């Protein structure tokens, strides 16, 4: 830990073994002072290792089994420990299918496979510069901001969206009409959103972002990658010994988990 500034640690997430090996070799050549380079081959492993090892730099392939590179970055930003400096992201793809400009906003760099030595030298230059100037700890809201930037990559904003004040959510065979003011929180589950109210839950087959974008007359606060809460229902937040916050919502008995990226919202003023 003491030499982290000197010998940066890298996690490479790339599902094709030959390319992963090639990237690792090329990186070591372009960046001799590099510390450990860990290589994983799928999305879930990338999230797990990134949170366990908290490396300085993440090289994430866009196309990976399990979770794609952006989903991995979102999950990592969501639960990144506050006592570690935020990781630097570099996205990698074989084919220029994503808007490069968008990636530059969310990440330090964006590399096309196979990365040539010259191109990788540029990336390493940027990373060195950023590592030298980056804060020792993630600034308040820094991860949440990174998270928001990543989310903006996930979907183009939908224009001409029909805005609603009543949510039609299915509960078994019935469709519940839920006025937005009665919503306590929205929780993403797979491809559904669970709409939680004081008298039960309903399902909406839509992504969390899409649903939130449609609602009118409610102030929603994001507290986790998969959770939006009604600002009017927030009662108190409790911090446990691990530094995790649990949010108490009016009308809901169970507490709602707050991820580290959003913990700063609940520090005393």
């Amino acid at each position, binding site marked *: 830990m003491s030499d982290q500034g000197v010998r940066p640690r890298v996690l490479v997430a790339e599902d094709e073994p030959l390319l992963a090996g090639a990237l690792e070799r090329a990186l070591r050549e372009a960046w001799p002072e590099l510390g450990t380079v860990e290589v994983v081959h799928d999305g879930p492993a990338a999230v797990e290792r990134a949170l366990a090892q908290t490396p300085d730099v993440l090289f994430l392939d866009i196309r990976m*089994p399990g979770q794609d590179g952006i989903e991995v970055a979102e999950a990592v930003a969501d639960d990144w420990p506050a006592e570690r400096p935020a990781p630097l992201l570099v996205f990698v793809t074989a084919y220029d299918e994503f808007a490069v400009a968008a990636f530059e906003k969310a990440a330090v760099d964006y590399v096309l496979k196979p990365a040539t030595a010259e191109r990788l030298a540029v990336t390493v230059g940027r990373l060195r510069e950023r590592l030298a100037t980056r804060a020792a700890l993630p600034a308040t809201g820094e991860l949440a901001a990174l998270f928001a930037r990543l989310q903006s990559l996930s979907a183009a904003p939908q224009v001409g969206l029909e805005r609603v004040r009543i949510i039609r959510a299915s509960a078994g065979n019935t469709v519940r009409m839920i006025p937005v003011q009665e919503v306590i929180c929205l929780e993403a589950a797979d491809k559904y959103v669970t709409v939680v109210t004081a008298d039960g839950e309903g399902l909406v087959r839509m992504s969390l972002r899409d649903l939130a974008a449609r609602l009118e007359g409610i102030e929603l606060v994001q507290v986790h990658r998969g959770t939006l809460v009604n600002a009017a229902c927030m009662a108190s937040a409790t911090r446990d010994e691990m530094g995790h916050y649990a949010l108490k919502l009016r009308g809901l008995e169970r507490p709602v988990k707050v991820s580290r990226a959003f913990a700063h919202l609940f520090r005393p003023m």
Partner: protein
Amino acid sequence: MFPSIQPGSRFVPSPWKKVRDIYVLVTLFCALAAAVLTLASPSFAGFLRWLFITGSIGVTAVTIGTLLSRIPGLRRLTPRAAHTFIGGAAIPLGYVIGSSIAYGLLGEPLPVLQPEPRRIVALAATGLAALFIVYLDAMRQRIEIEATARGAAERLAAESQLRLLRAQLEPHMLFNTLANLRSLIDVDPKRAQSMIDQVILYLRSALAASRSETVALRQEFAQLRAYLDIMALRMGQRLSFEFELPEGLEDFAIPPMLLQPLVENAVRHGVEPKVGPSAIRIEARRTGGGVEIRVTDTGLGLDRNLEAGVDASARRAGRPGDASSGYGLEHVRERLNAFYGALASLTLEANAPEGVRATVRIPR
């Protein structure tokens, strides 16, 4: 080898513009017939009288024919049957009604009752003219239908060829393969060489496929093996595959690259998005009804695929959705239908315990 747009399959009435042409033609014929009839006792007044009579018959016949051709039920007939019907009804009717009108207006008695050689000549002339016109119209229609069908077939052929090539030379696959080869050259030049051979074999078959009509199953399987070898190089341990081709089926002919989209789907939507290893099995066998070829994978299943993040990357890329697999399947069905007719089929089902099985059935 393309869907059944056979020339002249159904009758289509002449467009109104063409009807006008027919009237002009008929008038000219009537003038000719009148001139022939006048030859017996040449005089200008005689010519006008005959022109009036033949004209009346001709215009009436064409009018009746045109009206008959608009009967909706005729569209169900073949052009030949429709033209026979129209000609058979319009010519006698036109003669009777047309001459009745003409003689009535001239104040002469109907000549039907008093046979006379000139009548027979007039009758024959009118009949010939009318038949000629029906024939002309039928010819015109046949040429038009044939041209349309040929155009459609050519368009489909060109489109199919282009689609095949584009599918085979998918940029993502090419870039990824080249990137892998590049790194393999560092680590294992021998293996890199054999991989390049596979790429060459694959590209050569893709190119040949866009030119030939059929290919032996042996050859199709060899090309699929080359494709999967390339994919296995990229995916390492995650992809394994096996082939089964019974001896009697090695020379069985199928449209080239028919199975490629099925195997591609298995890789792209089954193996690639799944965490952990998957297997692909490609087998051909004889069944009671003909030949069955199955492509089975143990990757991410059908439901998971519809819901999984496969589409998330497509959405990010600004595309409306990853329709490529649906497109591929539709293409396979289209080619099966064109090649073997409606009895051939492609079905997609869940494979137990996981993955997808695509089955192509080819009738005997």
